[in-house]
């Protein structure tokens, strides 16, 4: 692909990705794009799955996505994808919730409502294995996230696995008991900003601009100054809640507001172990392709250059290049 000047990033409403919206609205995006002489279009997509599909089909150059979905759809779909910003990991934002039952083990035999093949599904699998159960011990019912809060109110639904803000919404109910959440598997559900590897290779400025925008905005998000508060309030409103609601969600998120920390996490050893668990989960659910013979069909390159799986078919890469540059102030 030839160098180009105009780029599109798709984002969806989620606490860890709201900074993109704020950055676009307040001109931070334009500032950095101008600096590198490019144009970046930040597009909100309501439907998360659709945003991934669009990116996979080539409609976008960059995308906000979780580590698992980045592997299952674009990477498996042959779109070489690089995670250039590790934004945060879920630290309680995703949870298994039971109705009137206090122990995770009580889930046995129940119908569990969740978005099938999503990080919720993964969280359930991890939760079950923590108490020695298998997926066969429950019955998974695919339920759309938009309807999860309403679904919880019905008699038929006794357990759900979902993410924020729906978790908060469900927990308002007196009968709701959180029996497992992502803080028990820290660092495994990672929210990324990814870009098409080829585009990135030909246009490193695009990556630099994204990193620049991201960390300038995050500084505001975590700031205790009035500007910071105003920013959080705006992001809360835009995601359909208020300041308090937004801050509650932030609290359950391990946000890497410092590029150095993000870079360190990316280079760390845990991420390799996490990705291995994730790809095994996907393989078991036939999400690495129907004819995948082993977990190794798709290669995952880690920040240190090590590759999980097929070295000749690397489609998903972690890199600390841009985060490190941000940390070093070289953007």
């Amino acid at each position: 692909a030839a160098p180009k000047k105009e780029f599109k990033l798709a984002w969806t409403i989620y606490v860890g990705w709201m900074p993109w919206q704020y950055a676009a609205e307040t001109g931070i995006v334009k500032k950095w794009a101008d600096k590198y002489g490019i144009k970046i279009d930040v597009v909100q997509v309501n439907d998360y799955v659709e945003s991934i599909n669009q990116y996979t089909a080539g409609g976008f150059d960059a995308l906000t996505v979780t580590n698992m979905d980045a592997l299952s759809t674009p990477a498996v779909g042959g779109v070489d994808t690089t995670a250039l910003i590790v934004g945060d990991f879920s630290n309680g934002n995703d949870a298994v919730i039971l109705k009137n039952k206090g122990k995770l083990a009580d889930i046995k035999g129940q119908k569990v409502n969740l978005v099938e093949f999503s990080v919720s599904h993964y969280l359930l699998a991890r939760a079950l294995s923590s108490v020695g159960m298998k997926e066969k011990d429950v019955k998974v019912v695919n339920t759309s996230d938009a309807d999860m809060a309403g679904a919880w109110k019905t008699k038929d639904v006794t357990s759900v696995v979902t993410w924020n803000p729906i978790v908060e919404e469900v927990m308002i109910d007196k009968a709701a008991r959180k029996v497992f959440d992502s803080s028990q598997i820290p660092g495994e559900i990672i929210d990324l900003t990814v870009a098409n590897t080829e585009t990135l290779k030909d246009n490193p400025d695009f990556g630099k601009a994204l990193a620049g925008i991201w960390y300038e905005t995050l500084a505001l998000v975590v700031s205790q100054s009035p500007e910071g508060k105003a920013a959080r309030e705006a992001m809360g409103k835009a995601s359909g809640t208020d300041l308090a609601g937004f801050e509650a969600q932030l609290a359950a998120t391990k946000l890497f507001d410092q590029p150095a920390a993000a870079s360190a996490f990316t280079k760390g050893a845990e991420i390799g172990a996490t990705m291995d668990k994730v790809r095994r989960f996907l393989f078991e659910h036939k999400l690495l392709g129907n004819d995948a013979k082993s977990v190794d069909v798709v290669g995952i390159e880690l920040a240190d250059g090590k590759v999980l799986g097929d070295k000749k078919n690397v489609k998903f890469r972690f890199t600390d290049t841009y985060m490190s540059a941000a940390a070093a102030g070289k953007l």
Partner: protein
Amino acid sequence: MRMINRHPPKGLVLLLALLPFFLVFLTYVTASAIRLADNPADKLLPALSSIADAIDRMAFTVNARTDDILMLVDTLASLERLAISLAISITLAIVAGLAIGLLPYPRALFSTFVDTFSMVPPLAVLPILFITVGLGEAAKITLITIGITPPLIRDVAMRTADIPRQQLVKAQTLGASTWTLTLRVVLPQVLPRLIDSLRLQIGPAWLFLIAAEAIAAEAGLGYRIFLVRRYLAMDVILPYVAWITLLAFMMDFGLRILQRRAFPWFADARASA
């Protein structure tokens, strides 16, 4: 010669009818080939062979994990939901439609209400639907029913009101009560027209079925489509869409046949009206 008088020769008619399908097919194959040349793992427009594989996997291979044929299970689940909701809708439409079309009191009571109700977008009030009927089969059936019953009622009421006043007077002069008049004069004339309305609602019924199955389900054609959409498995989605289209087409065809067989008088009567 004027275009209006220029008729294609017999042999050409079938060919012409097939031409647009062929062009769509060709466009697909070409576009797919182009994308696949660029990225062999592309999922958006899979090659025909991948689609064939997917069909084989979904429709002709017993699924190891669940021990059944997925497409069969999905089809049966969806058709059952459709059948139940259509049965309920038809019953409601006949009862309410006849009452509104025929009897002044029910008409005064319900006609504005039904007209208004038919404008409410059902998808927007799903949460209320959930607390009323739960999340199970009942919710799906209710959604489809709510979606298609109001237009059916309106149609039946309109068709009932269309029956010439003279026939109702005539029946009364023959000694009919409101009940026997409904049973012997009005209902038999409304039924074949109900089939017309029903044919128009087949499309919406499928639409609501898919929407309902997208919300919460464990099987069904719409469920599968939305599930595999998560990882852009167009090789599954496309055959499912084709299959749904075929099913809808067959239902339409079946209704047309039913109308002809069950109401032999109707075609002539309509033509001479």
